[in-house]
């Protein structure tokens, strides 16, 4: 079984991202949307934590949120639109949104 974890809180404000990362399964993926996309900001602890997972973590970002924030994405992160978000939620066995 695999889980798509969806995050939308800023990584600088609370523990959503760090809590998600510590209970992440080996087949799981993360979709960053809303302010959670700020985790990709260069030179931040959040970005370094994510970069350390290159090769072991499937990381997606909602395209409109990255664009709105003018974030440049690392090449290992895949940006998705809404049809692709729907496709991911079909591909993974369940979706866990961290409200």
């Amino acid at each position, binding site marked *: *079984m*695999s*889980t798509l974890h969806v995050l939308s809180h800023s990584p600088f404000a609370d*523990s959503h991202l760090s*809590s998600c990362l*510590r*209970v*992440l*399964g*080996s087949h*799981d993926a993360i979709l960053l949307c809303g302010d959670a996309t700020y985790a990709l900001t260069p030179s931040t602890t959040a970005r370094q934590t994510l970069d350390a997972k290159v090769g072991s973590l499937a990381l997606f970002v909602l395209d409109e949120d990255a664009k709105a924030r003018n974030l440049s994405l690392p090449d290992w992160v895949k940006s998705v639109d809404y049809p692709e978000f729907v496709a991911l939620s079909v591909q993974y066995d*369940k*979706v*866990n*949104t*961290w*409200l």
Partner: protein
Amino acid sequence: MPKSLLIISRQSPWSGPSAREALDIALAGGAFDLPLGMLFMDDGVLQLMPSQRAGALQQKDITANLQALSMFGVEDLFACHTSLAERGLSPTELSVEPLQVLRDQDIAALIDRYDQVITI
């Protein structure tokens, strides 16, 4: 086979109605005899502290409702070891039982086991 649902409660009992509303989902599902689990994590473990006095804030006591979970058929109750340790809570002094305290990797396996998840 009915689908199983894991409810992950991450809110302190004093931060508004969220903790109670997460609990209400569990109680409603228990009434339908559905396979449910409830995991307390992050500030959610603060719900499990003994001897809280809701009356001091003119609120209803959530502890009694938590203790009623097993009577409502929600017997799979879990707490996050890391979150307890971060908040200085000992697994032996909690107000709800039966309760399994899980390490991070066991929580990953727990989430994996359920069909659907709601994290509040």
